[in-house]
Structure formats: structure tokens, C-alpha cells
């Protein structure tokens, strides 16, 4: 059943021109608490579901999955270049690495800080961190492909990069695009045949998906 549905997707994909797809959204911004500038979030890697699936972006700043990584920047209203954040309010909740990269450690609210040249905080923003309640995994509509993303207990998609790895047993039957670490992939059909697509996501979801190409 699943194999045949994938096959029909494959046929659609052959005639699909993806050039008309909108460019991927790779971040979001929000005003700082003291309104002296804007904090922005950018995907740390293709393992952030928000960065490979525009549909996940809403109007507001996203909420982040515990255990995920994201990059944060601050741009002052007074001008100057956008700079990576250089501080967090509590190291219990957020781990700050180089170039504004944050690892979310605990669920709840957690403050990030913009700092001046001397390292003194000048403004702040509170991120919302949520535990992953489930991992969603679906076939794409209209193309032969899949996407995966984490959700909280209310079904809200969560941002932040998590480990994501796709592999296929026989790449001559189907090739993974844009790459094996993206949360949203499409398969480019090769020769006819059967093979298995494997997904390892966030260290929790392991899935083996049979694929048959018969063109």
C-alpha cells in the first residue's frame, strides 16, 4: 500500500518543475524587550525543520525544541552591523557557544542577551523552549518525498536544529535531494527497482521506508 502510494508520487515528481518554489525562509526576527533593536534567529543547519519547510513559519517568533541548536543575532536600532549574541541570562537553561549558537537545555522561558563591546548587556529577549512531545513524519504531497519535524504537546511545530540523517540502500534507484541531513527531502528517481530509505532523527525516530520506482 505504502509502496504504491510512493510510486504514484514518483510519477508526479517527474513532471514537477520545482523552479517555481518560493525561496526557503531561514530565520525570523523579534523586537528586544527594551526595544533598542531586534533579535533574529537563523537556522544552525538543515536539521532545523523550519529552514527546510516554509509552511512551519508563522507570524510570531518560533518556539524551540529542547536539545536543539539555533543561531541568534542582534541588530541595534542605533545602527551598525548585526552581531551574534554574546550572553544568556541563565546557563542552566541555555548553553552559549561561539557565534551566537545556542543549545536549549530545559523547557520554559530563557533569556538571551545583546551585549556592548565591553560585554555589558544592553538588551534581552526571552526564548520559549519546549520539550518534544512527538516527532511528525509525513509524505509530501505532489512529489516523492518526506518531511519530519518535532512538535510540542499541543501540536505546535518546534524550531531548532536536531540531528537528521537520511540514507538509501541503493542510490541508483533513488537519490536524496537536497541532502541527507535536511528535514525535508525529495527523491529523484533513477533506474527501476526496490530499495529502502532510512531516517534517523533527533536520536529517537528510526524509520525504514520501502521505495519502489517503476517508470
Amino acid at each position: 500500500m505504502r509502496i504504491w502510494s510512493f510510486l504514484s508520487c514518483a510519477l508526479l515528481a517527474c513532471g514537477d518543475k520545482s523552479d517555481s518554489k518560493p525561496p526557503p525562509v531561514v530565520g525570523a526576527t523579534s523586537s528586544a524587550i527594551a526595544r533598542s533593536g531586534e533579535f533574529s534567529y537563523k537556522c544552525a543547519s538543515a536539521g532545523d525543520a523550519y529552514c527546510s519547510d516554509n509552511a512551519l513559519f508563522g507570524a510570531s517568533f518560533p518556539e524551540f525544541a529542547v536539545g536543539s541548536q539555533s543561531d541568534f543575532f542582534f541588530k541595534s536600532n542605533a545602527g551598525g552591523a548585526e552581531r551574534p549574541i554574546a550572553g544568556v541570562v541563565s546557563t542552566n537553561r541555555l548553553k552559549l557557544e561561539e557565534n551566537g549558537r545556542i543549545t536549549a537545555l530545559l523547557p520554559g522561558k530563557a533569556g538571551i542577551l545583546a551585549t556592548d563591546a565591553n560585554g555589558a548587556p544592553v538588551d534581552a529577549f526571552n526564548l520559549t523552549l519546549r520539550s518534544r512531545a512527538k516527532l511528525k513524519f509525513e509524505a509530501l504531497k505532489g512529489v516523492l518525498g518526506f518531511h519530519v519535524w518535532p512538535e510540542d504537546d499541543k501540536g505546535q511545530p518546534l524550531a531548532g536544529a536536531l540531528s537528521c540523517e537520511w540514507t538509501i540502500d541503493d542510490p541508483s534507484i533513488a537519490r536524496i535531494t537536497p541532502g541527507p541531513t535536511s528535514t525535508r527531502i525529495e527523491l529523484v528517481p533513477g533506474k527501476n527497482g526496490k530499495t529502502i530509505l532510512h531516517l534517523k532523527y533527533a536520536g529517537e525516530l528510526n524509520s525504514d521506508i520501502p521505495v519502489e520506482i517503476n517508470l
Partner: protein
Amino acid sequence: MSTDRLVFVGHRSPIGFGVLLFALCACSDPSIGFRRAVAEERCEEQRTLPVKVREGIAESLRIELDTNKIDRIERIEASGNVGVITTRVSRNISGWADLVVLGKALGSGTITITTIDNDDGTRLVSVPVQVVAPEVTLDIAEECRAPDAGVTVERDAAGAGDAGVSPNIPDASAPDAAPSK
């Protein structure tokens, strides 16, 4: 005879006692202290010390001083488990400061406000701060209460990840009754 009159003025006459108190107050230095801390966005108000802030986040607070005798606030610093970003301060007698207070870790800290009086010089006001657990709820400001004691605002329960849940409202007769941890 004169002894009787002294006793009468000092201990029996309310008017005389009031005059004595007024004279004492007029001669002493004007006191400056903490009046209240208001988190307008959360609709929270604290009138007792220590001021509570939540661990791990940045909280926007206005601290109002109880004073009628300063000309401006000069500087604000934090120590201990809190940090502070000064957003705006009053430049007149009103004595308030808009701050972003950072609850760095559970425990205590101090915000020190340096005030300037053109006649009396520099004075320091120490505001003790307690950093409490993220899920602690604080007192709802009076203006946020409905006429029949209901609550008209919904607050985001910081840290608990349960936005939209009705806040725990402490007993109005015990304004400092919120749990400390």
C-alpha cells in the same frame, strides 16, 4: 507648677504631640526608600521586599521610589544573582526607573539605585531581589482585577510552558504570599 504644665503638654495634649512629631520630621533627613515594583506587561505589582524575579529570564520592571526629595536617578547597578539593564530613569522628583532585570540563578541579589539631590547630594537606595523559580506567580496589580475580584488578564506562566493557564492568584490579604520556590 511648671512641672505640671510640661507633663500636660508632652503626654496629654494630642496637638502638642503632633507639633513635636512635625518638628522632629522636619529636622531629619528626607528618607528615600522602595515604594513598589511594577511589571506592566505581566500586570504584576510588588509592594514588599525583596522584589521577586524569575530565574533564567529577563523581566521588564519599573521600580518606583518612595521619595519627594530627589532631583534625579544617576546610576543603577546590580550584584549577586541578578543583573540589570537600565532602560529609562526619571529626571525629576518622581523617582522611578525602567529596568530589565536578569534572574541569573536562584538566590538573592541587590539592585542599587544612586539618586542625586541638589541640596543633599548622593544617596544610595538598595533594593534586595530574590530570584525565584520560573513557575512562581506574583501578585496581580490592582488595576488588573475586575470589579468583582476576577482577573482580567491572562499571563504567560514563565518557564512552565503552559501559556494560557489561569494564573494562581495569591490571597489579596497576604500580598507577599506567593511561594518563594
